[in-house]
């Protein structure tokens, strides 16, 4: 029953129950294990893990860095005189590599929007977001080189295999990053939009996307940069682009040419970084 008070009438009935409202608030949880002790345990775990891994990782070979430094110096000296004689063809191949990265990233971004939203726990029930997340884990867990090998079998040697490999792997990564951004949104504007009678889809478009867009763009540009690097590696297993040329010249001991290619790759990645920084400033 309602405990209804009237100014005079029920005042006396009310008096015994007049306890401060705050007394009913739950007591704060008691302090946890002291930080110092916990940190010591964490440190011990880390040291143990490093110790166990020393042998299998052959960390004992570190002395070779010094005893065999002569070999390295000799090898490196081959790279000291880069030969840009064929720069035109290197540049063409570099552009192919960027184009592979561009398409792979673009397709991944398009697909990561729905996958990212569906794998956010505040957007979809568990029976949707758990399967979607596991699928994204699968995409992410398999390296793009492995995907590239699979796609080379399926669609043949060449850049398209590289695009597909980057596309699948990057979707796994971006969907996870996108969903983390979605999980961190302020839910209140979305709630306000819900009260206007908006559909779920409209709540996402007007309430969620504007909030996550800066982060999404930032993540996508970063992946584009990384995919230019990855696309270079994919060339090595036959997916076209500068990587293929690089690998061929290293295998043929053409160090001056390899050196020139590496310099082009480094410059390209730097330029990509500068461009994406400017783009980020423009849209955020």
């Amino acid at each position: 029953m309602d405990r209804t008070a009237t100014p005079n009438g029920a005042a006396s009935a009310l008096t015994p129950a007049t306890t401060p409202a705050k007394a009913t608030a739950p007591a704060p949880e008691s302090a946890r294990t002291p930080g110092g002790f916990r940190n010591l345990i964490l440190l011990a775990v880390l040291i143990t893990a490093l110790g166990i891994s020393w042998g299998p990782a052959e960390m004992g070979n570190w002395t070779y860095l010094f005893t065999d430094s002569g070999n390295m110096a000799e090898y490196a000296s081959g790279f000291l005189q880069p030969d840009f004689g064929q720069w035109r063809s290197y540049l063409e191949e570099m552009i192919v590599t960027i184009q592979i990265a561009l398409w792979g990233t673009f397709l991944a971004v398009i697909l990561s929007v729905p996958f990212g939203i569906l794998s956010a726990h505040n957007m979809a029930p568990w029976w949707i977001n758990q399967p979607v997340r596991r699928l994204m884990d699968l995409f992410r867990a398999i390296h793009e080189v492995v995907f590239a090998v699979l796609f080379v079998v399926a669609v043949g040697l060449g850049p398209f295999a590289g695009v597909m490999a980057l596309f699948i792997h990057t979707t796994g990564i971006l969907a996870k990053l996108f969903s983390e951004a979605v999980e961190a949104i302020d839910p209140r504007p979305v709630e306000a939009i819900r009260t206007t009678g908006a559909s779920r889809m409209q709540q996402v478009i007007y309430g969620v996307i504007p909030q996550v867009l800066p982060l999404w763009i930032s993540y996508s540009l970063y992946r584009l940069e990384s995919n230019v690097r990855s696309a270079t590696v994919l060339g090595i297993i036959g997916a076209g682009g500068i990587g293929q040329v690089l690998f061929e010249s290293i295998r043929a001991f053409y160090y001056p040419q390899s050196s020139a290619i590496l310099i082009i790759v480094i410059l390209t990645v730097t330029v990509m970084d500068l461009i994406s920084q400017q783009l980020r400033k423009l849209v955020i």
Partner: protein
Amino acid sequence: MTAISVSNLSKRYGKTTALDQVSLELQRGEMVALIGASGSGKSTLIRHIAGLEMGDGTAGKVTVLGNISQDGGRPNRSNKRGAVSVIFQQFNLVTRLSVLTNVLIGNLGRVPRWRGTIGVFNKAEKEKAQAALARVGIPQVAAQRSSTLSGGQQQRAAIARTLVQQAEILIADEPISALDPSSARRVMDVLADINNQDNITVLVSLHQVEYARRYCKRTIAMRDGRIVYDGPSTALSNAFLAELYGDASEELVLPEAPAEPMPAVPLGQPARQPALMHA
């Protein structure tokens, strides 16, 4: 005609009872204040009426304009969308969108779904949104990003959104507690104007009883998830509040407010039939 009817609504969060068998009725065209100290259940009640939360148990029921909105903890999906418009303490605009877009969002429950989804609003809708901004006194900010507005302006933009929504009921969850006094008065003036001119039923939760006395004929007071008073706002003297809330009453009264000379009037009616009090 009953605008809002709540009966036997209960809600628990863990061990805290937020609502305990709450029942109330609002008639069409009323402007009612909901007061109570922090944690008394005002926001929870408003979120249930707005359809944002579902009550516990099988007895709780919320009816809006004669249509059941929730019954026994289940929402009524066939209900008309956007029948109740809501404004919030923290304004809840999408701060990266323009003010005009935020106001246009009020149309989403009214225009065809596909059109709202791809964001195509016609000239009449845009003019209506612009007119709503003019009515709340901020026509000049339409093109600005919402994050550039002051708190008071954001709250008025949120009210413009509810005007575009054209719901017959407006509920406001502490709309002025994040605002300075002059912005707060302006927001309350706009709410009172909407109630007067458009005959929209307004339920507004307030932290400070002064505003209830000034703007609302009727006040519902809550404590510990229950309704402890439902009647004329004039009867809410500071002394009576102290009786209702004990020490917690201090947070409901502005320190600089003049002592309330009005003597408390006994009311013969229980809270269940608030409409009779106005007869």
